[in-house]
């Protein structure tokens, strides 16, 4: 019995060592350090460096393991004080972020509160936890998110909540990838490739935020990864990670939700929230189709605005248009619902709208921002997507 247990433990250990990602290997190095097996730790870090010669953090750990043999260490990354301390600090932070991610996995039964519903065409969604320097890749499992992978990411030098051009911050919000720029179209700085996202989106512009060029991209060929806070606002992944992630991204479809710190929820609570919003959306559709304009307009908030209209002009326009209709048929399809991080109860709802009436008929992709006001869901923005 004991022998079986020992064999199993050995198996687990060897798998921790042979595991594919450098981060797993780094974690195995720290496990050896904690087990007071410094020789094992050094061997593991040497193997890691042999496999990933550009992994700077691994060199820092190697330096510590060697120096520990010569004299007691004062700190992690025990480099002499004359070297630029911010570089050491960056690597220390990377180590912390990577180890924390390895040890504090999201609970099995928890999902990010943002992904209320994915449409059937969205095979994946990305959720970024800025505080943890982590990007989570979720698969669309019948409209519900299922965690398939997570990656260490570098974000803006000056943190999050981008508002201005050049502020070197990463935006917080609900975005999607808009293009795929392969390596050959880029300088080495962007590494294996780049995927721009649609910052600033409708909500950002409404808040007066500017700036542009927020991408998911790789790293230069001379590094494996960069410190947690080092980009000009972009989301930076190691090149192998970017390539793996890139295969799952669909242009114009895959959501990228960037949060300060991901809020987690259980599936049941999430489903209740989704259902309440889905009901409001269905009521909006039914009320529009019924041509009862006042009931229809009751779905819009007083603070509503579209690209060029406020609530007053919008309602005046709608009253005029609707009164001219003898019939309307409205169909909604491919609905996605993504809660906006940081904002209190704001959900981005995107769908394909099939509008038919006497007179005009069209099919369009539409985006609405719904907000909860006094317990009821109201539309605060509407426009083509």
């Amino acid at each position, binding site marked *: 019995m004991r022998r079986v247990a020992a064999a199993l433990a050995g198996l687990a250990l060897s798998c921790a060592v042979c595991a594919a990602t450098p981060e797993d290997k780094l974690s195995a190095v720290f496990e050896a350090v904690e087990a007071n097996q410094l020789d094992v730790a050094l061997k593991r870090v040497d193997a890691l460096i042999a496999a990933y010669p550009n992994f*700077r*953090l*691994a*060199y*820092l750990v*190697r*330096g*510590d*393991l*060697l*120096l520990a*043999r*010569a*004299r*007691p260490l004062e700190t992690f*990354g*025990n*480099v*002499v004080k004359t*070297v*630029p301390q911010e*570089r*050491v600090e960056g*690597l220390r932070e990377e180590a912390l972020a990577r180890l924390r991610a390895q040890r504090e996995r999201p609970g099995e039964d928890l999902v990010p509160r943002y992904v209320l519903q994915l449409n059937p065409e969205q095979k994946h969604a990305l959720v970024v936890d800025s505080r943890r320097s982590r990007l989570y890749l979720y698969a669309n499992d019948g409209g519900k998110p299922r965690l398939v992978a997570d990656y260490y990411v570098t974000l803006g030098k000056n943190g999050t909540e981008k508002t201005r051009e050049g502020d070197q911050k990463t935006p917080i919000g609900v975005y999607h990838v808009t293009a795929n720029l392969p390596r050959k179209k880029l300088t080495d700085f962007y590494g294996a490739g780049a995927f721009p996202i649609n910052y600033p989106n409708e909500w950002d512009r409404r808040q007066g935020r500017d700036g542009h060029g927020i991408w998911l991209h790789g790293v230069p060929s001379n590094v494996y990864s960069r410190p947690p806070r080092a980009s000009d606002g972009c989301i930076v992944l190691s090149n192998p990670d970017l390539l793996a992630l890139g295969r799952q991204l669909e242009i114009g479809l895959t959501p990228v939700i960037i949060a300060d710190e991901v809020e987690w929820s259980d599936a049941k609570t999430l489903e209740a929230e989704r259902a309440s919003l889905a009901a409001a959306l269905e009521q909006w559709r039914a009320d529009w189709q019924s041509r009862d304009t006042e009931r229809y307009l009751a779905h819009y908030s007083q603070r509503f605005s579209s690209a060029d209209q406020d609530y007053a002009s919008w309602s005046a326009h709608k009253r005029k248009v609707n009164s001219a209709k003898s019939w309307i048929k409205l169909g909604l399809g491919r609905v996605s619902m993504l809660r906006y991080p940081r904002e209190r109860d704001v959900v981005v709802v995107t769908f394909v709208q099939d509008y038919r009436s006497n007179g005009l008929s069209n099919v369009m992709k539409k985006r609405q921002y719904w907000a909860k006001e006094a317990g009821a869901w109201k539309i605060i923005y509407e426009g083509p997507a």
Partner: protein
Amino acid sequence: MLNLNAPREWLRGSAILAFTFMVGGAALARADDLQEAQQLFKAGQTQQALERVNRALAANPREPQARFLKGLIFTEQGKQQDAIDVFAKLTQDYPNLPEPYNNLAVIYAGQGQYEKARAALEQSIRTHPSYATAYENLGDVYAKLASQAYGKALQLDSSNTGAQNKLSLVRELVREPTQKPVAAAPAAKEPPAPAAKEPPAPVAKEPPAPAAKEPPQVAALAPKAPEKPAADPTSDVLQMVNGWAQAWAKQDVDAYLAYYAKDFKTPGGEGRDAWEKTRRERISGAKSIQVGVESPKVTMRSPDQASVTFRQTYRSDKLKSQNRKTLDLVKADGRWLIQEEKAGK
């Protein structure tokens, strides 16, 4: 960073225990050549020294002492590759000698080949687990490798990440003392059983097989090879404690410090260097020191671990004290060394 004298002092001190490597039956003429070569080498006349060494080696090409000196001469002359060849061949022919590994490492380190230096030093220590010079050198090599790793981690110009290395070359070939047959063995004295002091093994707690757990310890306490005459370990310990107290009283700091194991637990948890510095200042700062060891009691914790408790009387021009002291000792390379020093009970 590195006290060049300390290891040599240590080597000289340990010469009492160790004896110079000499191949039995060496012809007188050859011994003369070698002796002359050593004197010439010390006088800085390396070319003449080399001629004498070659003459000695012509008569006996495998003679390690002469080959070792030849390696030193090449090193001195800056013929690093030749020196490497000599020392490397010595490590192959005499893999149990730590010194050639050490010197090989010093040359590698001088060439910036720190990984090779590290391998050689680790080998040297594997040969002689308490080899102080190799330890100090290895410490420097680790630090150097660490600084190279940091340089890569932080993208620094690694050419200026540290001072040039100051590794110590060993100038003498000394053989390990354990090969020397131990003289009289007072077999009458039996080693004190550890169980005598501590409560007996809780047999009741482990009914299945108390005997299965016990024997290895007992076996380990007994001499491994029955034909080897067993020295009384407790008398070795007492001898060591007396030597330690004498070195202290004579204010021979190097000899005193040599009684402390490499992994000595400094009382305040400070670094070894800092502790040594304080000790050095204290001991050499006193006008006179008297140290007395009264009614020592030795407890063997394992064949190479012991504790000795005694009443220590200390008297210097500055301080007079009496207290109980316990030294935790560890045996490395036939030598008892202090691992921890505890005052009071």
